[in-house]
């Protein structure tokens, strides 16, 4: 099963990261310098000291970045580990542990110049050998790494001098740079990893702004300031405590009562109310908004009736009013979607319009598909209030043209299992989004993603060729052209009926300063301080 899926407003144990858009930074601007890098804060001068309390939507299950498969882990990783590269508030790739890099002209060698004078929390020096060790660890067939697939084109990683590393690829692979801004780019201490083996998740050691103190499952993770952090003068906070609140209402209530300083997933149905509450005099909290990074929609199983019939898939999609779902059902906490690329991602194409609902056209398509009177089908979804509201809206929209949906609610793990066995006709499963567009589309509509991503069972040679080409192209604008072509084909074939993209929200206390809301939705704390 897949590592990252978003199914509804509040999401699941797996990758439920939400990514926000690069665009709307206004709210973040109120709290910190918009778009600026952390170094700016070092001079800006925040307060030293204090404990920051973070409310997460679920308990981070695994603190080893090379084995983690839950999105929520990554919120903790941002403080515990540094990555070879990072993304800034505009989703541009910026240096982190790699001070600079270059790509060879054939696109098959990636050379990294590493930052000097960095050490892990246990005192192990960070250098080329450490990077080589990390890649070996992720690629070791005997080590059950969750990262291997992300770096599968890597054939060798070689230290050419103490602070230079060459990553050699079997073919040009443009998504690699963004991959290194995420878990595959997080460097663990070789000494600590060798010593702890499979227990490394219990004693994690990185180079991050904060070092590990303790983790009590289902309760909290405590991190302490790293006094030797390589960004001079940072971090400001003495301590960070992450606590998990799986219940949406409880998480919001804890922030409102001042028991938390920031929470990571704001339930969409409450956004309107929270926005109003935040404006009340004396409200100690603020809602930060971003564009969208995640998407949600309905898989139509093309391997069996009724959706093996293209005209019926088109009829289904045409009968849906996406704007009403975003604005009425989700009360404006989402944008309507008609592609795999939300407006916060680099491949977003603003010329791509949301087609209006057209019941007459839907009926024509039904006739063309040989079911003029409509048809029945089962629609599977994960539990949740928001999910159910959306499913019922879709049910009544398609019901008007004669498509009778039977809604079936399944626990998320069971839903994925059922769908990966292709026992469904239609099912609603979304995706949390990735900075590189490749991970938003490739496995979902190609053969390689069957059965764990491509729940339509959809295969199309033209789509496959275009997406393979996009992986080789180094220039993003060229890639975007390929993605737009693919999107056009998909809009006609309709294996996945896109519905909406949730906006990225963070609810923060007004005491929290210096926070930069980055499009990937990650809570980065090295530049954050608490106003007294």
């Amino acid at each position, binding site marked *: 099963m897949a590592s990252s899926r978003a199914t509804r407003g509040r999401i699941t144990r797996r990758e439920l990261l939400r990514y926000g858009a690069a665009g709307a930074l206004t709210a973040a601007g109120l709290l910190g310098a918009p778009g600026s890098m952390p170094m700016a804060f070092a001079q800006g001068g925040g307060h030293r000291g204090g404990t920051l309390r973070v409310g997460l939507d679920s308990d981070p*299950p695994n603190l080893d970045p090379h084995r983690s498969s839950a999105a929520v882990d990554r919120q903790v990783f941002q403080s515990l580990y540094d990555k070879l590269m990072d993304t800034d508030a505009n989703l541009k790739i910026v240096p982190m542990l790699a001070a600079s890099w270059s790509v060879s002209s054939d696109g098959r060698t990636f050379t990294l110049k590493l930052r000097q004078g960095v050490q892990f929390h246990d005192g192990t020096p960070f250098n080329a050998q450490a990077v080589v060790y990390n890649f070996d660890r992720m690629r070791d067939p005997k080590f059950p790494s969750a*990262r291997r697939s992300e770096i599968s084109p890597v054939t060798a990683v070689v230290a050419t001098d103490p602070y230079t590393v060459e990553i050699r690829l079997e073919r040009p692979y443009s998504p690699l740079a963004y991959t290194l801004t995420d878990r595959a780019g997080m460097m663990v201490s070789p000494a600590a990893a060798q010593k702890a083996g499979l227990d490394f*998740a219990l004693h994690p050691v990185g180079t991050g702004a904060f070092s590990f103190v303790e983790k009590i499952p*289902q309760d909290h993770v405590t991190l302490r300031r790293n006094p030797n952090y390589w960004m001079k003068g940072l971090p400001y906070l003495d301590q960070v405590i992450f606590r998990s609140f799986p219940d949406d209402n*409880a998480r919001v209530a804890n922030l409102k*009562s001042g*028991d938390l300083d920031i929470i990571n997933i704001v339930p969409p149905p409450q956004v309107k109310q929270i926005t109003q509450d935040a404006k009340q005099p004396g409200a100690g909290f603020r809602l930060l908004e971003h564009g969208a990074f995640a998407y949600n929609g309905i898989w139509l199983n093309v391997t069996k009736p009724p959706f093996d019939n293209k005209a019926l898939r088109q009829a289904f999609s045409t009968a849906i009013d996406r704007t009403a779902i975003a604005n009425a059902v989700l009360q404006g906490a989402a944008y309507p979607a008609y592609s795999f690329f939300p407006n916060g991602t680099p491949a977003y194409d603003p010329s791509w319009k949301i087609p209006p609902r057209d019941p007459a056209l839907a009926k024509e398509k039904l006739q063309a598909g040989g079911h003029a009177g409509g048809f029945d089908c089962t629609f599977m979804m994960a539990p949740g209030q928001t999910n159910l509201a959306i499913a019922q809206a879709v049910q009544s929209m398609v019901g008007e043209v004669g498509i009778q949906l039977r809604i079936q609610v399944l626990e998320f793990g*069971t839903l994925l299992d059922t769908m990966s066995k292709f026992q469904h006709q239609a099912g609603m499963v979304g995706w949390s989004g990735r900075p590189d567009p490749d991970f938003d589309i490739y*496995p979902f509509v190609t053969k390689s993603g069957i059965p764990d991503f491509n729940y339509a069972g959809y295969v199309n040679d033209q789509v496959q060729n275009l997406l393979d080409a996009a992986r080789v192209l180094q220039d993003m604008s060229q890639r975007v052209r390929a993605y737009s072509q693919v999107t056009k084909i998909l809009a006609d074939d309709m294996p996945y009926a896109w519905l909406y993209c949730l906006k990225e929200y963070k609810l923060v206390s007004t005491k929290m300063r210096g926070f930069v809301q980055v499009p990937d939705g990650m809570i980065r704390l090295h530049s954050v301080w608490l106003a007294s």
Partner: protein
Amino acid sequence: MIPVLFFVSVIIFVLINLIPGDAARLFLGEEAPPDAVAALRHELGLDQPVYVQYLRWVGGMLHGDFGYSFKDHRPVLATVLEKIPVTGELTVASLLVAWAIAIPAGALAAWRQRTVTDYGASAAALVGLSIPNFWLGIMLIYLFAVHLRWLPASGWTSLTHDPVRNVRALAMPASVLGLVLAAVVMRQLRSSMVEVLSADFVRTAKAKGLAGGVVVIRHALRNAVIPVITVMGIQMGTLLGGAVITETIFAVPGLGQLAVNSIYGRDYPMLEGVVLFSALAILVINLAVDIVYSLIDPRIKLAGGRS
């Protein structure tokens, strides 16, 4: 108890293995290559036949090895033992809350039968029974944490670490669980009390000229409480189930939250550990209830005794 535990272990294992979803696939990332999944399945022992997995599990337990979490290789036994005091304390506190409300209310309702007091108490009990745990929990948070700011909205401090903060953290979750339980106990106590109050020995006591309160407390209550204890024993299971929801809302790091997270993450060894300990707890409670019977009513003898 041993045969019961054996059957429980079989049932737990079979049920958990019936949950759809492959733990190994669940942990590995996108486009996970088949060999990586195979390696993880091997590491987790999932490539073995189910009966071998079961025998390994039971065999390990007999040696005190309850296995390791699939998620982060944390030992199951240590984790469960760490959670037991938390849920245990929550359970005991809920019982105290329930008793403190239900015993006076139930006795009073029975004593003042068919009066406003009686109807009022019964109506309150009906409301208590009908309120869902999670709703009550959220409402308490909004009232006491968000508006009045008297109590922390959630979280946990252990009793040994800071008793005051422990009690403050415990107050709301224990009240939520206790209120629902109080309703059940109060209704049970009222009906058994009504029965006892019409018994001959109560009439005799009254005839001797004892004061009403003394009759109710010393004579009637002690006899009326036996069926209530049975109900309490049964309710302990419900309490553990309710703790799952209450712990989630109040972020109390107990067995309930551990169970929920283990189910969602398909962390089989951890889930098996939690369920087994819960089953053990219920068995122990039932035993305790039997013992308490004989303490309260000497006419009831423990098994093995002769009457």
